[in-house]
């Protein structure tokens, strides 16, 4: 199996981050902003994984026939697992806040949700 050049992963990760950032900054609908946030998180996770990737090495699971020096760096993978869990918690929190917001304001448009200002 041929794996694309490592720079492809970096390119993909950065594009995902920028797409997510664009959605958060530009979109007016809160749900779309939250989706943007998730896309951004995915991009960061991909970036972390790519940093630990070594071309041609296997997954960092200790099994028969795979020596420690034949596996990719396991630390970024552990980091990403943690980051994914945190991301899930944040997404759940934001969505529940969006539900409460919709109950009180009857809209998800950020331009209409402006009781606090100044």
């Amino acid at each position: 199996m041929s794996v694309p050049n490592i720079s492809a992963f970096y390119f993909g990760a950065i594009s995902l981050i920028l797409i997510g950032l664009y959605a958060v900054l530009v979109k007016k609908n809160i749900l779309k902003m939250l989706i943007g946030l998730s896309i951004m998180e995915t991009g960061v996770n991909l970036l972390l994984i790519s940093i630990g990737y070594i071309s041609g090495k296997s997954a960092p699971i200790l099994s028969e026939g795979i020596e420690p020096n034949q596996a990719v760096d396991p630390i970024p993978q552990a980091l990403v697992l943690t980051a994914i869990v945190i991301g899930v918690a944040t997404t759940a929190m934001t969505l529940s806040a969006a539900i409460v917001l919709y109950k009180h304001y009857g809209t998800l448009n950020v331009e209409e949700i402006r009781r606090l200002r100044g």
Partner: protein
Amino acid sequence: MNGQYASLLIALPLLGAFFVPLIKGLGKKAIKTYVLIITAIQTGIAAWVFQQVYSTGKPIIVMAGGWRPPIGINLYIGHFAALFVLIVAIASFLMAVFNFKAIDVEPIDKYAMLFLLLMLGATGMIATGDIFNLFVFMEITSITAYALTAYNKTGEAAEASLKYMILGGIGSSFFLIGVALIYGATGTLNMAQIAQLAGNIDPTVAQVGLALIVFGLAVEAELFPLNAWAPDAYQAAPHPITAMFSAFVVKAGLYAMARILYLMSSVGTWHNVLKLLVVMATLTVVVAEFSALRQRNVKRMIAYSSISQVGLIALAFALGTQAGVDAGVFQMINHAIIKALLFLGVGYVAVQLGGADIENFHGLGRKMPVTAFGITVGAMAAVGIPLFNIFWSKLRIILATVEAGYTWAAFLVLAASVVEAVYYFRLIHAIWFEGEGERISESIPLVAIVVALVILVVAIGIYPNYLWSVSQKAGSDIFNVAQYIKNVPLMGVGA
């Protein structure tokens, strides 16, 4: 006693939070008492750690699971962390007392859990010696902070919380990208080892990584332009939580920023990041002071004032000199005391009189004299009048700023102080010289806390020397990176 017991600082609030559901059936009062007890024990442990660190002069290094760093994650409780863990615990304890009066909305058990986790998160951020562990604690802090902001269940609370979440989400992603870049360049996540290897990183990578981390933490540290969430969240959150935000959650973010900044001080392009931070901090001070001037809601006004003071601390840290860091730490301590006092007083008034609008403060001097007195002292101290504690730290920050060659920043900060004086004196005028009112009986424990904090403010204002020497020790803990590296028993791998 063995220094490893310091890990109880993390374990106790975590276990305490998990046991809240067990006592849920005993009623509201039992839960609030339980939180009070846990925070009191935490204060005791923190005081022991403080005494231990300051009497031996050596940091306590807690190694998780007995693995030596950088393989294992370590906690580093040096002069700074010992001091601030104590402040976190004391502030939480005082607010646990305030909970009895201020919190009535159900579900109290969830509130208690989040309250303890917020304390845990801030403690962890201050104590940890691992940059990814710092990220995890930061997320614990911010997720509980999001939930607590929305706790009152009003539309405003949900709005403030959502704003906070979106900015916080962007911030934590930026932070993680920065961590990824630094990990990619050094191959380690241990802070001491990062400091050791920082000189070898490609300067451009280090600069971008550091700038991303600073931006990510700027959300927690409430620096302009990423602090739009802060006034809303301060206004909408329950009163004790507002005081906690201001007294230590923002401090944890600032500390993390300062720590990582100085760890990377051997990087060639370091001064560019410092300049960026100086500009951000000065803008924070100026913008927040002018926004505070227009506020009708006193809680929101004090929130803006808190942001401006935080900008002052960030300015002190961004100077890159020993004097600046010391002054910043001193200001952090004073700010924690003042803002705990002010938010406690204002929150108590809002609970008693149904809202924190300025109209409710008319005639407060007759209605609630002790609380009004506390707010007045807090306001005068925040402006920076001599004989009160902030005077000394503001003076030292401005001197350090001029010394470091940023005369324009010192000038802008001083000009902003004049604006601060205007709105605080307006508040004092409203309290003492406008409106009439009947005396309302004030709760004894809260009055005791207010008086104790007032005495502390004045005592530090008259005898600043002891606290200044403590701040100097804590400041050199951040500034003297070589000593930091030496203190952590790194195993010789990968370096």
